[in-house]
């Protein structure tokens, strides 16, 4: 590894690199072209061997094949990556803004006393400096930052880079963990898969999504009625699920489901980057929000600046009236 290389903390899912890993590989390749180094994806755990052959866009894939890395736990991940960063001294480590990345990246930065930037959307290297544009305040602000210290730990928002469609197969190297991995104070016990959902929102053509603007649990009935008239289902942004108003299986976004409906009607959803990540595949997005600056209007095709509690009943009435006329 050289001081010009860009390392990627890769993640796998069912034997394949996750979407964010391929996006980070593309980002790393662009950066490595500017630094004169290589884009190196690190996959931790035995599953990495299977996933490595599906990585596109990187120059190299380094698989750390060790049973202690089979299930994610922060400590062994940080131990291995710290060693790689200290011994190889690459220019930067890219991690996704994911459940794993949000643990490992800051722990690494603290341990190595190196800079970390979260919410990265654009990264360029010039004159020995990394220039980063990062999202701030749930996408309502952007910050331009400069980092000179090496290595920089950069946490990249999913969707910021497009994965390479094709490319030369990267060179794959598989090694055992370069550091001893002893059992630590955190022990993985079990992966709990979602209970069979009453509705699989990933398969719905029409989704009525609710956010904080719904205000009260009782108001969910309005969304249910609208979904029924439209022939769809209700889903939600994270705060609604955190309130316990809908199950986790109805959550759309980074930690929930990725959906691809023909119609995504967003009611009272501001459009934080974590939520937008889950609706990239939606065909038509219509947003209803009282805040004209809500980021959801940046991705919606049509917008309605009204209180959903006023607008939804009017839309239900219009839809019902049109159905009556059609009969």
């Amino acid at each position, binding site marked *: 590894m050289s001081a010009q290389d860009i390392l990627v903390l890769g993640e796998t899912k069912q034997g394949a690199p996750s979407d964010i890993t391929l996006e980070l590989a593309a980002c790393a390749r662009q950066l490595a072209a500017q630094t004169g180094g290589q884009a190196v994806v690190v996959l931790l755990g035995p599953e990495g061997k299977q996933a490595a052959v599906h990585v596109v866009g990187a120059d190299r894939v380094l698989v750390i094949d060790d049973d202690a890395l089979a299930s994610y736990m*922060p400590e062994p991940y940080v131990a291995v990556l710290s060693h790689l960063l200290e011994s190889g001294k690459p220019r930067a480590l890219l991690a996704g803004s994911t459940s794993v990345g949000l643990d490992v990246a800051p722990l690494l930065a603290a341990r190595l006393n190196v800079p970390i930037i979260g919410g990265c959307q654009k990264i360029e290297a010039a004159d020995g400096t990394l220039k980063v544009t990062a*999202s701030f305040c*749930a996408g309502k*602000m952007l910050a331009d930052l400069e980092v000179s210290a090496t290595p920089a730990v950069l946490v990249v928002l999913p969707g910021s880079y497009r994965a390479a469609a094709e490319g030369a197969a990267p060179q794959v190297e598989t090694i055992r963990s370069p550091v001893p991995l002893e059992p630590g104070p955190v022990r993985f*016990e079990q992966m709990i898969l979602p209970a069979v959902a009453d509705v699989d929102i990933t398969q719905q053509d029409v989704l009525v999504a609710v956010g904080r603007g719904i205000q009260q649990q009782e108001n969910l009935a309005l969304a249910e009625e609208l979904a029924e008239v439209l022939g769809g289902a209700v889903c939600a942004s994270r705060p609604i699920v955190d309130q316990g108003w809908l199950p986790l299986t109805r*959550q759309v976004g980074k930690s929930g489901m990725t959906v691809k409906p023909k119609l995504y009607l967003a009611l009272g959803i501001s459009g934080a980057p974590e939520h937008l990540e889950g609706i990239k595949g939606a065909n038509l997005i219509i*947003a209803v929000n009282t805040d004209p600056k809500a980021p959801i209007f940046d991705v919606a095709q*049509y917008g309605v600046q009204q209180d959903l509690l006023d607008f939804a009943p009017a839309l239900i009435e219009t839809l019902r009236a049109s159905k009556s006329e059609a009969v």
Partner: protein
Amino acid sequence: MNIAVVLRQVPDLIETLEIAGDGTCLDYGAARFIVNEWDNHALEQALLLKESRGGSVTVVALDFGEVDNTLYEASAKGADNIVKIPWDADQPPALRQAVALYAEVLRSIAAELILVGCQAHDELEGPLAPQLAFALKLPYVGVVRGVQPSDEPGSIRVFKEFPGAVVARMAVRLPALIGILAAEKAPRYVPVSRIRAAMKSTQIQEQEVSPPPTESLATVSRLYVPEAPQRAEMLEGSVEEVAERLYQILAEKGLVR
């Protein structure tokens, strides 16, 4: 179990955010503040654990924004001890400085479990919680949706969230710091009358901490409002007119009959 919780103030995103004169940071003087929602979930989780297994909950907060209201509300909800760290500056501390401030106070509390929101929307230099865990030499797991007591003495069980509604159950030996995404239940509501009562009865302990030098390793050169490459076509008119127009759009696209 003795639990400590960090409660931070963040700008309320419902309000318009202003940029300070030098163009590199928010104008916090013009902001309205709310408690960081993930910290609020951390407090709720701490209270749930205390109610199930006993112990105490100590809240630690920086004297910034409208923190006193937050602290009285925490007391009304059931927090036993409130510790406030004096902070006179117009801006919140940089992340590394915040880590040092909170770490010094939390070391003196010696809680078995520290719960902190796994993120805050005004963090540019990564989340506080894991960096605080490292400073305190404590094990860390973040993005956690629920913490439960364990049958194993000196341990807890945490439920770490992954995409696709998948959750990993992990055992964590105490002492530890956990980054909370959501409590097992929604944060409780307390009536204003109880908060008013707490304002009279709550003893807020101020703990002076010598501020460490600021040493951000990344430099902000510009802060700005993003310009969207595309904006939605806004439908104007009364609710009935907009509903009718939207119906027509949906009909044109074959999404309604």
